[in-house]
Every structure is written in C-alpha cells, then in structure tokens.
C-alpha cells in the first residue's frame, strides 16, 4: 500500500504544477510584454499602429470630426441625417445611443495601454536602459497627447493613471487644471527621456522616418499645452527649442504651381523636414485616410467616403494671393455642372495605390506635429508677452511661405487676432486646430452661434454647451461617479 499512498501524496502536492501552462507564444502576458526589449517595443509600437487606423484619422478621426463641428466643412447633401457624422456637423451630439458621439471617449482605451506600459516599463528590470528610457518617454508622451484631446473635447475628465480597473471604475471627473498638470508633467518627463534623433524599430539606430516621438515632438506638444494653459514664456521656450533645431527641422517652401496643380506637397510628404512627428500607414497600399476622404473624385462628393468639401467661411477667410488657397497647394477644386467644390489637398497621394496587383510604397504620412504650428505658437506666445516684433517675425515666416506680404498688425490685440486667423488658414482641416482655437480663445459662441453663425449656416442650432462633447450615457450608467456634461 505504501507506494500507492506515496503516489496519491505526489498527485496532490504536484497538482498546481500539473495545471500550469506555458504562456501562449502567439500572445504575451503583461508580465512578459515589458520584460524583453523586443516585446516592449512591440507593445509600445502598438500605440502607433492603432493611431494609424484608429481614433485620430479617417472618417472617425480628430481632423474630420472637429472640422465638421467647427466651420471648416460643408457636408454633402446626400449624407443621411442618421449618419453619425451628421450629428457632429449639426453640433447635435447626443449621449445616447453611444454610437453617435462616443468616438473620442474611446481614447481611454489607449490611456489604458499607456498606463499599463508605464507600469510595466517602470517595473521591468531586464530591458536595455536606453530602450527602456526611450519607451518610457514615448508612453508618457502618448498619454500626454491623448489627455490633451480628452480635456479639450470633454472638459473635466477622469484622470486615470493606473491600469487597475477596480480603482478606475470609481474615478470621478477630475478638474481640468489637474488634468493639464498631468499633461505637462507627462510631456516634461517625455522631453527629458526621449531621444533627440529619430529612431528606427530597434530604438538604437537612427532613421529618416519620423514616425516615433522624439524630444522635439515632446517640446512641440508641450509648447502647445503651455500656450493653451497661458504659460506663454514656457510656450515660447519650447517652441524655440524645436525651431532652433535647424539640423532636423525647417519649413518647406511651396513649389510654384500657379498654373498647374502641384503633384505633391513637400510639407506632408513622409519624412518631410517640416514634420516633427508623423504616423505611418499600416494598411497595404494605403497612403493617408485623409487623402481618401478629402480628395474629391471627378464625380464630386458622395455619401461615402467623400462626404465633405470646404465651407464658404473657410474659403472666404483666405487673403487674396494666398498660395495655400490659390496656388492649388493645399486646396483644389472640381466643377460639377455649375457648382465648384473646393477640397483640401494637403494630402495628395490617393489612398489606394495598386499597380498590377502589387501595392505601391506610400509617399505621404499623416503629419501629427509640424514646424509651421510652432512658429504660430511662438508668435502667439510672444504677442501675449508683448514681444511685438518677435511675434511679427514668426508670423511673417509663415506668411512669406504662403506668398503673402508681411503682417500689418502691430498691436498685441491685433497680432493675437492675426495669429488666430493665420492659424485658421495655415492649420485648416488638421487635427481640430480650428475647433480647439475657437474654444480656447472664447470665440466659439461668436463664430458658431447666432442666426448667421457657422452652426446656422450648416443647418443646426447652436447652444454654448455644444462646445463640449457628451460622455456616452452607457459609461455614465456603468461608472458610479461619472457625471454628464451640462446640457446633455
């Protein structure tokens, strides 16, 4: 009987071992994901892969939806009123059903990835120090980047900095100021951690591809954040840090195309020297989703994917002779019958590029941060600080490239107005700049509201509360401490 008893005893004691499995090779557990250089790089790169198809681009992306919310686009009349984008266009978002306006609330999905990456990387002990530093910098940058949009779109938002859902489920909306503090601290940390030069997939070698955040990207975003939060000296300082790095960054002059349309714009080409941070496409044969949506086919706008063209307000805001508008650099047009549709052509490489069944290499990348904005940030920061000549100088750099004469604005208030206008025509249909500028400068009600305001022109009715997007009702019901934005 003894061997049997021994056998039973062994069976019992080793039970735990008997049901331990090796983790799947087709996936990595979070414990392992950040413990080798390769898998940690894979996990953080996942953030960018999702960017290239997710919330920032295409027909549910920031540029498009904010452009609809603001005064940049006219929506094609054939788009059904039940289409979610119509709700953005008419400034008519509702909290429920969440399919209508939950787009940007979904950013929390990536905040989760950032938080778990920061936790995993911080705890990791076996990473190459330089790689660990760069990755930590990238994830801090990305968290700052995402919170920047969350706080702008929704106002007070729950500030979530851990991956533990049991804690996160109970977090209430955090006052904006605290969120901005977190963004600044993330971006400062990122700036200190990130590499100056662009790195390739090994995170060791440098590359010409500008598709990973660098110190320059952190400074560029930080300067924007300082501008938004009114810390003008620091905004100027950070913008200067980028502008002064002329070995990496420089404005790209327009090609003189007064007669024939430009075949390409150097500014938005991949690896353009104006680019501070770009997002690579991950779909075979694709260039940017923006090109796919905005470039109108010869048949004109349609219900999918070419649902918008440029609004009369935006077209009217260009000064005569502006090469961005009239040089067919960034705006092109197509005539259908008696109507001419103007559309953005910042991205010109058509979406699908297949030749004889083989996909062509993309020529353009979605540009998230570029030098042009930094000049405008510095101009505004300088104007705010009373540095009139400095502000004029920065503004004129942008105007000169557009083929415009130097600015005549000489007072602080005139300069601020001019900079805001310059931002409208320089940064149009990019990253919601117009929508955010209207909100942060307090002009949103004036521009959108009223019987002749942008909202009425689009066919909607403006109420001030609409400058903040609603939180999906589902989330309000699942999160015990979450409250809705006023008005919804």
């Amino acid at each position, binding site marked *: 009987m003894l061997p049997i008893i021994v056998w039973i005893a062994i069976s019992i004691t080793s039970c735990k071992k008997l049901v331990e499995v090796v983790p799947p090779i087709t996936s990595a557990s979070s414990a392992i994901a950040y413990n080798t250089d390769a898998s940690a*790089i894979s996990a953080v790169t996942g953030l960018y892969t999702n960017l290239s198809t997710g919330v920032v681009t295409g027909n549910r992306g920031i540029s498009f939806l904010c452009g609809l919310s603001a005064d940049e686009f006219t929506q094609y009349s054939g788009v059904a009123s039940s289409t979610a984008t119509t709700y953005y266009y008419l400034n008519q978002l509702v909290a429920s059903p969440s399919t209508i306006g939950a787009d940007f609330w979904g950013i929390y999905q990536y905040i989760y990835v950032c938080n778990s990456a920061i936790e995993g990387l911080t705890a990791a002990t076996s990473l190459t120090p330089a790689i660990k530093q760069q990755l930590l910098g990238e994830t801090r940058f990305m968290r700052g980047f995402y919170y920047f949009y969350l706080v702008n779109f929704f106002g007070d938002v729950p500030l979530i900095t851990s991956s533990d859902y049991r804690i996160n489920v109970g977090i209430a909306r955090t006052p904006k100021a605290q969120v901005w503090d977190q963004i600044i601290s993330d971006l400062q940390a990122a700036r200190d951690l990130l590499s100056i030069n662009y790195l390739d997939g090994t995170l060791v070698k440098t590359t010409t591809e500008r598709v990973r955040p660098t110190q320059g990207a952190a400074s560029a975003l930080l300067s924007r954040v300082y501008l938004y939060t009114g810390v003008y000296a620091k905004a100027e300082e950070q913008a200067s840090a980028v502008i002064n790095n002329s070995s990496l960054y420089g404005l790209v002059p327009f090609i003189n195309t007064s007669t024939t349309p430009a075949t390409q714009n150097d500014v938005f080409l991949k690896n353009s020297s104006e680019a501070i941070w770009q997002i690579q496409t991950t779909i075979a044969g694709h260039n940017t989703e923006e090109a796919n949506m905005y470039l109108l086919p010869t048949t004109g706008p349609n219900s999918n994917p070419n649902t918008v063209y440029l609004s009369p307000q935006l077209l009217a805001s260009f000064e005569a002779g502006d090469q961005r508008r009239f040089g067919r650099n960034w705006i092109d047009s197509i005539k259908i019958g008696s109507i001419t549709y103007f559309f953005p052509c910042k991205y010109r490489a058509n979406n699908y590029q297949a030749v004889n069944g083989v996909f062509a290499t993309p020529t353009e990348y979605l540009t998230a941060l570029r030098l042009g904005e930094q000049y405008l940030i510095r101009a505004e920061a300088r104007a705010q600080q009373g540095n009139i000549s400095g502000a004029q100088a920065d503004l004129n750099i942008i105007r000169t490239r557009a083929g415009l004469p130097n600015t005549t604005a000489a007072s602080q208030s005139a300069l601020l107005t001019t900079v805001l206008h310059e931002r409208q025509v320089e940064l149009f249909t990019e990253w919601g700049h117009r929508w955010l500028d209207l909100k942060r400068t307090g002009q949103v009600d004036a521009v959108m509201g009223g019987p002749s305001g942008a909202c009425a022109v689009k066919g909607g009715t403006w109420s001030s509360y609409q400058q903040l997007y609603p939180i999906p009702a589902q989330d309000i019901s699942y999160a015990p401490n979450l409250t809705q934005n006023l008005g919804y």
Partner: protein
Amino acid sequence: MSFIAKLSRVMKLTALILTVCAVHVMARTSGQTISYRAENVPLKQVFAEIEKQTGYLVVYNSAKVGTSKPVTINAKDEPLEKFLNTVLGSQGLQYMIAKKTILISPKEEVKKNAQGSLTPDLTPGLLPPPPNPDVTITVLNTDNQPLEGASIIIKGQNKGIATDINGRATLRGVDPNATVIISFTGYVNQEVKLSNRGINPSATSGSVVIRLTASTSELDEMQVIAYGKVSKRFNVGNVTTVKGEEIQRQPVGNVLQALEGKVPGLFVTQANGIAGGGVTVRVQGQNSINNGNDPLYVVDGMPISSQDLISLGNVLGTSGGTQYGPVSGFGSALSYINPSDIESVEVLKDAAATAIYGSRAANGAILITTKKGKAGKTKIDINVQQGWGKVTRKLDMLNTQQYLGMRHEAKMNDNAAVSATDYDINGVWDTTRYTDWQKTLIGGTSQYSNINANISGGNASVQYLVGGTWHRETSVFPGSFEDQKGSLHLSLNASSDNQKFKLQFTTSYMTDNNLLPSVDLTSSALLTEPDAPALFLPDGSLNWALNSSGNSTWNNPLRYLYVPFKNKVSNLVSGALLSYQILPGLELKSNFGYKKTSTYNFLASTVMAATKPETRSTAIRKAVYAYGTDESWNIEPQLSYIRKIGNGIFDALIGSTILQNNLDNTTLSGSGYTSDALMESPVAATTLIASGSTKTLQYKYAALYGKLNYNLENRYIVDLTARRDGSSRFGPESQFHNFGAAGAAWIFSQEQLFQRALRFLSFGKLKASYGSSGSDQIADYAYLNSYYPIAGLSNVAYQGISSIAPGGLTNPAIAWEETSKLQIGIDIGFLNDRLLIGASYSRNRSSNQLLGYNLPSITGFRSINQNLPATVQNTSWELSLNTVNIKSKSIRWTSSINFTIPNNKLVDYPGLASSSYANNYIIGKPLNLNGLFHFLGVDPSTGKYLFADINGNATSSPKSTTLLNGDRTVIITTFPKFYGGFQNSLTYKGFQLDFAFQFTKQLGPNLIYFTQIITPGQFFNGTSNQPVSILRHWQKPGDISSVQRFSAGATAGISQISNSDAYYVDASYLRLKNLSLSYELPGIWKQKAHLQGCRIYLQGQNVLTITNYKGLDPENQGNSSLPPLKVLTLGLQIGF
C-alpha cells in the same frame, strides 16, 4: 496463489461438489503442464501448487481431501490431466476441468447418488426420523465461474441464504423434497427440487451444482460509465446506452447523427446534409449563457474535442460552438470516429453519472466505446454497403411565367420603367427560358459507399480485432465533390495466465479527405431567377451572360466549382488500459491515452475562373491555407477495491487524471499567384501573411477523484463521487475546485412486501441523485493579461515591428460555471422485464455564469469576464418504454419509445437590465428568445404589412431599438417543446426489420416570408425568386392578404415581417429516421459456401418526413443550407 483457493481452505466446507448435469468427467486437454517434485506432501499442498502453476482454481471438499494420504510426486512438464490422474488415482477421487476450474470429487459418491438406491426404508414411529441432510449448493455461471452473492430461497419459506465467494452456500437440514429458488442478478432464476438432483434423504449431506444462464433482460445489459461498467439494473445514474448495432444500422458518416431520437434528454441537430457537416448536441438543454454547451466526449477513455478545427470555409456549418473555447471551427470533430468501429455509446446525464468527470461534464458526457476482439475462432467479417442520397423534398418556387408576372406587376405598381440592369425582364436574359434550379443545383444523387472488414479472434489470454473501413460520400451538388475516409481500428486484449495482469489496447485512426464546395448551393437553388441564363457556354466554360458592354449580367452559381476547398484531416485516438490485481478485489490500473488530430485546409478564395471576366484584370488571386494540430495525452492511474462488507458489496475507486492538450493552428493568406492552377502551393504566392487566427494553445488538466458504491442486498444502493479538479483555463486564484455527487437507488422490487403484493412487478427501482459538475469550455489563457498581435490581412507593420496590444481586461479569478443537478427517477419492469418503463425528472441549475460584466470605457475596456450569479435552469421530463411484444422461437418483436419535455429558463440574473445582455434575455424566459412584432395582416388599402404597436394600434412602421423592446410585444422561443423517438425491431427467422421514428415539436421560420430575402417583385441578381405562395398577394385596394404588394424596389416590410410573429410557424415533424431490413441466409446455404454468416440488407436514413412545415426541411430549417439527405443503401455482410 489465488485468494479464492486460500479462502477455500480456511473455510470449513461441509459438502462435496457434485455435478448432476455433468456427471461424466471431461477429459478435454487443457494444454497446461505441471512440473512438481515432492515427497509425502498432503493433497492440499499439491492442489495449491497446481493453482500456482496453472492459475486454475481447484475446488474440493477439504474434509474429504483432508483424510486422503500424502503423495509423492516427480513430474516434469507433465500434462495437467496426466498429473491429476497420477495424484488422484489411488485416492478414490476424480476430477473435472471446466474452463479454469478443477472440481475434485470422490468417485463413489457420484455413483451412489446417481443410482439413488441407498435410501433406507424408515418406519415412522419405530425410529426417530433421521435428520434432513445438509445440502451444499454451488452456483456457477455457464462459464463455470462461481457466482458470489446468489440468493437461495427455499420455496414456501422465507428463509434465504446467499452464496459465498466460491459460489457456495449450505442449507442445513433441508427437506430433500423442498424446491429451492436460486436467483442472481443478471441471470435467469432457477427452481430446483433437491430430490430431483439426487439428494438422498438418508444421507447426512449432499451437494448440488447449479448453473445459471445469463439474463436476457435489458436491465442486465452492462452500461459503460465513467471509469467502469455497471448493469442498468444497479445504475444509480441517468445513463442511456445506444448499442453499436443500432448505430451500424444507420448509413451515417457521423455517429452523432445516429443518436437522433434515440436518447431521452438528448437533442441533436444536423447543420446540413453535407458530408462532414456540423452536428449540435445538447444534453438536457443549454446550461451556459455565453460559453460552451457541448457534452464531454470520451472515446475509449480519451477525451476528444467537441468542436472541429476546420477554420476556413463555413460550408460545413457549426456544431453549436461559435465563440468560445480554443476550437470553434466548422464541421464536427466526431466525423473522424468511424461509426462501424463503435461497440456502444453511452449518454451520461445526471450528477451521479457525470460528477466524476468534474469540471468538464456539466453539459453531460458521451462515452464512445469501440469494438473489442472476442475469444474464439478467428473470424473474418466483411461488410459492403452502397447507397444513394437525395434531398428529401423540393419547394414550389415561381416558374418563369409566374416570375415575370410578378416582376411586371411590381414595375407597374411602382410606375417604374424597366431599367438597363433589369436583366431578368429587359431582354438581356432569354425570358422564354425556364430552369428548375433546385433540380439543377441540389437535385443530384449522392453516392454513399462503405466497406468494412474486421478480423477478430483470440484465446483466453489474448483477443484481438483489426478492422479497416473505406467510406465515401459524394454530394448532391453538381461537380466532383466527395468525402473519402479510410480508417483503421485495432484492439488488443491480453491477460497473464493467472488473470492478474491485463492489458487492453485500442487504436483508431482515420484519414479524411473532403473535397467540398466552398459555398452551399441551396440558397441559389431556391432563389435564382427561373429565367436566369444557362450555366455553361457551348464550349463548356462558365456562362457569365455578358451584356453588350462586356459586363456579366449574373453571378453564375457554379463559379464555386472553380473555388476549391479541401479539408484533410487525420485523427488518431489511442489508449491503453493496464491493470494488475494486487489482491483479490484490489486492482491497480492505469489508462494511457493519446489523441492527435491534424488538419489541413485549403481554400482558393479568389480564383480567376470564378471571377467575372470584366474584373479579372484588376483582381488579385487569393488563397488561404490552414494547418492545425490538436494533440493531447492523458494518464489516469486508478486503484479500485471491491469486497463484501456485511450483506453488501462495497466498491471503491480512487484515481487521478493528468491531461495535456496542445493546439497549434497556423493560417496563411497568400496572394498574387500567376495562375489558378498553382494556388494550392503556398510557394507560388507573391505575398504570404500569417493571419491573426494563428494560435498556439496549451491546456492542462489534473484531477483527483474517488467513487464509493455500496450495494446492500441488491436492494439499497448508495453511490458517492467526489472530484478535485484543476484546469489551466482558470485563473491562479481559482484553478482548483471540488465537485461531487450523491446518488441512491432503492430496488423496491427486491422487498418481500412488494414481491408478495405486486407479483406482476418484476423490477422496481427508485433513484435519486444530486450533485455538481462544472464546465470549463472557455478560451485558454482567458485569465492571463495578454497582449495579442495587431494584425489584419493587409497590414503593414509599423516601422517593420509586429506590434501587440492588450486583448482586454482580464480577471485572474475567473472560474468554473457550475451546474447543480438534481434528478429523480423510477424504473419499473413487468412480466419478467418484458415491459420496462423508465421515468425521470431532472432539474439542472447552472450558475456562476462566466459573462462579460460591463465597465465604463474609462477603465480601458467595456467589459470584463466575471463569474456572475446568473442562473439558468433546465428541467426535463424523460420517459422511456421498452417492450418485448413477441418472444417466441421464430419471432421476436421489441419496441421502445422515448419522450422528453425540456424546459429552459433564466432564473436569475442580477443586473440584467444594465448588462449588455439586456436585449437578449428576460428573467423567467428561455435563453433562446425572439422578440417579435405582432402581425395584423396586410393593410387592405395600401398593401403594406400592418403590425400592432405597443398600444395595440395598427402601424406599418413598428418601432424597436433593441430585440426585446419597443413594439416587439410577442416573445417566442425556438427551443423544442418536446421531442423523442420510437423504434421497433422485428425478427422472424432470418429476417430482421428495424425502424426508428423521431419527432420534435418546435417552431420554425415561415416559408412564405422566410425565402423572401428581398421584396417580392424586386430584382436582386441571384436572389429574386419567390415561393408560389406569394401569389396570393395584395393586388388592389380592398384585397385581404398576408403577402404585401409587389414592388420593384426595396421595402421596409421585408425586415419587419421577418421580425414578426407571422415569421414563425409550427415546424414540428415526425420522421422515419431509419429503416433497416436484413436477411440472414439459412444455415445450409452458408455451410455449403463455408460461411459463418451471410446477411443482405437494405438501410434507409431520413426515409420519410411527416410535417406541416413548408420549408425544405424542419430539422435544419435552412433556406441556405442543404437539408439532411434521404439515403438508401444496399449491403452485404459476410463472415468467415
């Protein structure tokens, strides 16, 4: 030395063994030899030595033998018989060898008793009457094995006695004229008058040997249960056996199809009539809301997967699993077990039967036992079967004239002109054509062939069976689609001479090459326009009916002929059971199992030949390859102990299981081939990408279990099982869990009270069990916080790095879904068990449901898997009736009926309203719910469908945002209301006729609306035809109809009607599932042909369906999947 022999010496035997029925000594050569040298040893020692050397049992009266003289022996390799003659010759003893028992008896007594002349003449009064003799009765079975525990009752008295381990019992001072009744469970009772067996009243003792023959009662058929066998009579659990013969009477490619209508509590649905198609099996209903509901399948002790690995084309349909578990492919994994190799299938349902399987058997268990060799002459058995299959029936669809009428009326209604794309009526298609597409596309005859050959035989120590089968099924579709299977089955049983060590080894191997269409043509067969063009051009190529601008005007349904879909599977299931008897009653055994399924799938998804000519220049050829292996092994050491304690038998088992399963699945997507012909080679692709469904999974499982059974006087039975289980599918916090069950049975017919009061009752058993088992049919690694590759077919890696992202929030505490099962039942037998009735009620409650628990998106994900206290209840009333209607020498007629009333409901779901299931379930209702608008008919003024809104007002635009609210006021379920089957088996001389019906009461989609994918009158290339029943449609104001106004454009009515109660009609049916007629040739003919057996037979499956249901088939109810075929076969079975 055997324990039995030892015991025989310890116990004082009072009488000698005498045989009446076999008085002559059998001098058959045993083949055994003895080598023994000894001087002056007592006979007892010699016998002991014989037992040791031969493993035979020596039975003798120690009183008689004790007085015999010691012997001196010098034997070397002496035959046993010679040895015995030498030893016994001078002692006045004789011997008899029967099987493995040597009976020793004095020579004289046999004679005297045989003569019966020694009875003294006793004069009453003069002498005191001599005491009655003590009579020893030995009860053996027909194999001369002693039967322990047989009961001996003297007729007319209530005295009874049970036999000991040697099958012996002594009646003291018994009147020789008394009649004794000997009974033993599983054997036919015998009544013996002692005096007829030579018991002499004057003798002081006597002995009688009685051989009982095995019972033919169904109650005594052995049932395979978890880790053992038990007769139906003593089974406490709810177990139904389907015998191999019943399965082999049915021409099916998958054993599960043969179980339809045979087992109470088991509901089987065939996904379609394509060879290798999916089969969904539910034992006592659906327990899990969100996870697996499949039973545990065990083949010869080795668990096999319930779902198939096949991952590409979905033409085979599912086996009920779509979203859970590591395996959820198309088709059925049980297709790879050869039905010809099956000895029996046991369906285990309640806790008493399933709890020992712990966390895997909440959904019941189906044990498949393959055939084993039997001792005896080498037997060769060849069985050849050829058959033909057809679709059971056709639907009445519009012919060209009716179709054109509908289209023109629609155009007129809409005031619409015939457009350039109205090919069906604008003259592009020849409107004088008519094609019966059902005949063309699904009207073919499929071939069914099965050739099976077995060789079996062996002796007492080794038995073997080797079998091979070739099976081929073709399709009713045009084209050379076929499923070919070759299989090999091997079974080897071996035992040591002393029967202590035993080996049982079985291997089943099958290789299956299934060439399938990538698309089921049934939908095209029904809905293609009757005037659609010819399939082929005169040159034999596909006709695309190009219009003047060179564009195809239809999607030729036969383009799939050029889209090869190949599914190759090889499946090996192998097991060895080793056992060693340490002590009598104590056995150590271990089961070793190994299983490997390898699949290869190839699907050429874009082939130029199947692409419209005008798009060929821009199309890219695409193909997918999937390679999968699913490999597992298990080791199950067990220790069992059986002994008599008190008046009962105590049977205990303790064991453990270690199981590991490794699954690898690689899916490669290729594109850019230069020719259609090269596509099966991945090398020919210009790009080859591993897709996201590529996975490597490991599953481990360990358990410790025990089972106790105590059977007191064959009257009271208690059965306890317990199991501690660990599964790698669960989080470290809850990897282990305990399961257990208690069952009890009371065989009240054994009580004298009942025996006297209810004489007509031959058997009566009440049984009840309660216990728990679990389900671990969830995905592997679900508790791990895993990062998965972000990949798609056309993805380009960001910076060349394959990026990963977290798959979701994970809960390290996820655990089993647990089902507590309560079952009570009664089994009664009348007329010597010729009429057996079984009834049981079961109530299974599944809780701890693993569901997605909603979270706000701020946590990163919208839900997390949690075990929630939601409870699903399945109750079922199961009735079965087995009768032997006629039982005579030449005729035997038996019948059986089974009937099940299932009921499923969601008992509790805390927080249902706020969960993501709020739109799918209602507390108190079944899990399968459809919320529907109430249909009010067609509006006589507009011709639109009218429905009742929530206030009961008529509306043509009912509202609902979700499935169960808004104007959806009617809630129905498509779960069956009741189901069952009945079977008859008739034998007359060499003829045998079997037929089995199956019936189900249920709801199904209404044909008239069901086939309307589009509005009647609309043209939507390839799907526009309608059933003739739409002709009674609304035509002009005032018409009362149930079919809306024809329209050439899309109408909302089509989706509204399919969401209304008009969409569901009775889909109940009664089907002659199986018919089998065979004729065994008379003996003389066989002798002349030197055959052991020769049988010709005719078999039919799905022979006749009686239903009011108007669709193609009430079972799979599809308008897009091929119904189960009607198959008729002819066969010949020859045995040598």
